[in-house]
């Protein structure tokens, strides 16, 4: 353990910095990137998703500041993008620190503090990764404060009690703020025993979001809201065409346009800085850019690429002899499924406000990858990494879209060119055309039933564009080593391990535009295929689809957790197989990052209109640090999943990605959201697990399975449409 205290000269606020090695006992995270263990073992480990905390032992990435007003500021290494992480962290800290949660302010740590997450905010890992380290750190800090209070009060530490930021005993009391006053020398004790779960006041309770007030009054908390005195606006020319390379530009017409401050020509782009956003946009549109476009891509080109059998296969799961059984035998049941190219479509466009001053740069940005943003800006400007301070803001939606932030580079280059702060962001068309999309997929499912109606063998082949490979988040090219993209096949393995012969194969396709991380990665598409097929098999086997699934789940911890959510969901929804009039229930389940989820969608069909009335969801994320926010994530996943599986589809037209605006890119709106969402939370393990992504898995299949019961039509392609 180390300790470090700093007193800022001239600062009215005394800083009490804790940078210790406390609580980094879960440093499992990067193992799969460096250890040469057998590939399939890696896949299994990654599938469990339990490698969350990637801080390094010397800087755990969390620190507190105690103010003289007796408030605690918690600098979070994780960004808040709606998932509620800041609230969960405040709850965890408040409970072990013994201070009211209202007295804790959670702020994004700036990169200059060095206490930012070296990896990312994403993968549903924030709370599960920080639960233990933050509790230990908070409890240790409480003891440090208590010990120092004992010295100051002249009372034995053992006779002191801590409540709401006040340490009392022997008829005396002192606040945390008073304790830290004047102290420069701290002793860090061993980590004290943590409280029992039942004694927590906040953990496990539906505490209101800590950012709730700011978000209902419209406070300027997002990257787009950042502003600096003398700020100018930047805009960068981008081609509409897929794969276009910048050659050069004629900027004559733009140079004398109103508000233009400077045209900036770089080796790889041309941009403009102007006094207002409109003026920057107008001038940009007046620049004539020469692009090199090698091919005019069409949707058909892309569809032909995404096909099982094309590219390179990698077996990601194998048990028994599925391949042999399913080859050339009678009685094989087979189905194909497809999912489309999907956009993130988060409401806040990507952008940044950069201010480059000599050898230093400051960037305000909505980013999920503070460290990568910092490194990329430093590289481009040719300055030291530590001279770039990234100030992460609240994100107007993340969903994986902000795991790469080249906008920061462009804002910084433009700022350097004019010597003033420059804000630069995508318009919506640019946002749609430069997205890092959810890749399209094609699935081939095969199975054979035994005479007693059980699955003897099953196989899933999935062809997908890249998710992990080629992304900024994974700078090392692992494609040769791993072969299959762990993001693309997320959710592509079978959770029904009691099936004696099962096999999953991933086919990799590299598309001519960026496809990458999208909430839950491949889970939505893979679950759509597997769980639709399981429904088809249950019908062939003449079994109830819920019982059919239970019959194929193994008896181990993961299997029992899955069975429990399936049973809980069926019970809560009052599961009934078969349609009543034009209405029916559809069932599906998935396991993602060790969190099992079951959902039942109650759906009606009128004409060709599918309507989702109610969704019942049972999920076992382990400990729900904030059950209300876990529910909020479930509700959000269900609605985003309805949107993606019923409406959304990008396509390629005349070499360009389209649509480029909401509306034509249809998404779920108020009228499409179920009026009832009923959630059951189970706790099958005594630690928090993944929450923000797993519940998006089953919804597409649950809807399609309900539609089949009403119409007799099996919808095997998303977006789900009744023709």
């Amino acid at each position: 353990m180390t300790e470090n205290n700093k007193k800022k000269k001239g600062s009215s606020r005394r800083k009490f910095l804790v940078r210790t090695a406390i609580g980094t006992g879960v440093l499992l995270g990067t193992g799969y990137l460096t250890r040469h263990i057998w590939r399939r073992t890696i896949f299994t480990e990654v599938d469990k998703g339990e490698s969350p905390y990637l801080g390094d032992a010397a800087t755990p990435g969390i620190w507190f500041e105690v103010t003289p007003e007796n408030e605690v500021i918690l600098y979070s290494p994780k960004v808040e993008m709606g998932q509620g992480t800041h609230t969960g962290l405040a709850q965890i800290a408040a409970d072990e620190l013994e201070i009211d949660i209202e007295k804790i302010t959670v702020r994004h740590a700036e990169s200059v503090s060095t206490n930012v997450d070296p990896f990312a905010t994403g993968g549903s890992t924030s709370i599960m990764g920080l639960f233990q380290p933050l509790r230990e750190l908070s409890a240790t800090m409480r003891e440090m404060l208590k010990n120092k209070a004992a010295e100051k009060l002249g009372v034995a530490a053992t006779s002191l009690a801590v409540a709401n930021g006040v340490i009392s005993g022997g008829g005396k009391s002192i606040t945390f703020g008073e304790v830290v006053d004047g102290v420069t020398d701290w002793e860090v004790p061993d980590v004290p025993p943590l409280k029992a779960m039942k004694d927590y006041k906040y953990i496990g309770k539906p505490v209101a979001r800590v950012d709730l007030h700011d978000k209902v009054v419209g406070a300027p908390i997002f990257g787009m809201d950042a502003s600096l005195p003398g700020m100018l606006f930047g805009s960068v020319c981008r081609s509409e065409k897929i794969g276009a390379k910048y050659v050069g530009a004629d900027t004559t017409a733009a140079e004398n346009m109103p508000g233009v401050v400077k045209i900036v020509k770089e080796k790889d782009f041309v941009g403009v800085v102007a006094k207002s956003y409109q003026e920057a946009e107008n001038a940009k549109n007046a620049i004539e850019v020469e692009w090199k476009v090698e091919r005019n891509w069409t949707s058909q080109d892309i569809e032909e690429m995404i096909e099982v059998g094309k590219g390179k296969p990698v077996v990601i799961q194998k048990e028994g002899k599925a391949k042999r059984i399913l080859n050339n035998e009678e009685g094989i049941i087979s189905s194909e499924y497809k999912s489309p190219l999907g956009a993130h479509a988060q409401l806040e466009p990507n952008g940044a406000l950069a201010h480059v001053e000599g050898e230093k740069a400051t960037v305000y940005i909505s980013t999920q990858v503070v460290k990568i943003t910092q490194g990329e800006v430093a590289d481009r400007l040719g300055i030291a990494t530590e001279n770039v301070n990234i100030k992460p803001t609240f994100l107007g939606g993340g969903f994986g879209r902000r795991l790469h932030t080249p906008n920061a580079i462009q804002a910084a280059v433009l700022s350097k060119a004019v010597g003033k702060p420059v804000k630069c962001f995508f318009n919506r068309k640019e946002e749609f055309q430069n997205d890092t999309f959810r890749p399209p997929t094609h699935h081939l499912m095969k199975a054979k039933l035994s005479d007693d109606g059980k699955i003897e063998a099953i196989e899933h082949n999935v062809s997908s564009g890249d998710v992990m490979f080629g992304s900024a988040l994974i700078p090392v090219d692992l494609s040769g080593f791993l072969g299959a993209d762990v993001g693309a096949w997320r959710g592509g393995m079978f959770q029904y391990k009691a099936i004696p012969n099962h096999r999953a194969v991933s086919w990799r396709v590299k598309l001519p535009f960026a496809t990458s991380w999208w909430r839950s990665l491949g889970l939505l598409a893979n679950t759509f295929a597997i769980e639709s097929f399981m429904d088809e098999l249950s019908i062939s086997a003449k079994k109830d689809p819920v019982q059919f699934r239970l019959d194929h789940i193994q008896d181990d911890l993961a299997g029992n957790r899955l069975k429990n959510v399936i049973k809980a969901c069926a019970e809560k929804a009052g599961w009934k197989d078969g349609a009543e009039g034009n209405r029916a229930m559809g069932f599906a389940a998935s396991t993602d990052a060790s969190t099992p989820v079951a959902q039942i969608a109650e759906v009606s069909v009128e004409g060709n209109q599918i309507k989702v009335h109610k969704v019942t969801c049972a999920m076992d994320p382990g400990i729900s640090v904030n059950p209300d926010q876990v529910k909020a994530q479930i509700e959000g996943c269900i609605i985003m999943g309805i949107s993606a599986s019923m409406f959304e589809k990008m396509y390629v037209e005349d070499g360009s990605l389209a649509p480029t605006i909401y509306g034509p890119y249809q998404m779920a709106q108020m009228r499409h959201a179920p009026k009832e969402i009923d959630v059951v939370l189970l706790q099958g393990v005594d630690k928090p697990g993944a929450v923000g992504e797993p519940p998006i898995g089953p919804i597409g299949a649950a809807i399609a399975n309900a539609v089949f019961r009403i119409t007799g039509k099996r919808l095997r392609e998303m977006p789900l449409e009744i023709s």
Partner: protein
Amino acid sequence: MKISFTLNGTAQSVEVAENTPLLWVVRDVLDLKGTKFGCGKAACGACTLHVDGEAIRSCSYPIKMVEGKNITTIEGLSSGDSLHAVQQAWKEEIVPQCGYCQPGFMMATAAMLDKIPNPTDEDIDKNIQNICRCGTYYRMRKAIHRAAEIKAAEASDS
């Protein structure tokens, strides 16, 4: 050109190009950042504010059209420290996730409730057509009904 209007109860005058969208005047000239940019084509509703009590999408509303009019943004929805019924309901139901689209939804809701004090689900579906990517619609619907109750209670108190 010079345009004069009232913003959140205060008289304002700005000197900008006549076709500048109201959104950018509010955000960048008058520095009220609660009204958001989402799409610039009136397709998402993140920029919704009130002009003379009507919910409009300010990204596609030229500044010249607000001469002499009354503009209310999310910052002016509450009066002093007391939140508007819609904001109170949003807090009670813990609606926001990322929060970016929420001011637009709250402004659209506030305008709807002025016309339809007790909206049905169908009224809500028809009138609230903004886009939320986090998928908070389920809680929003509850909050809209709750806001109607709070407003009705406020009206009977006064």
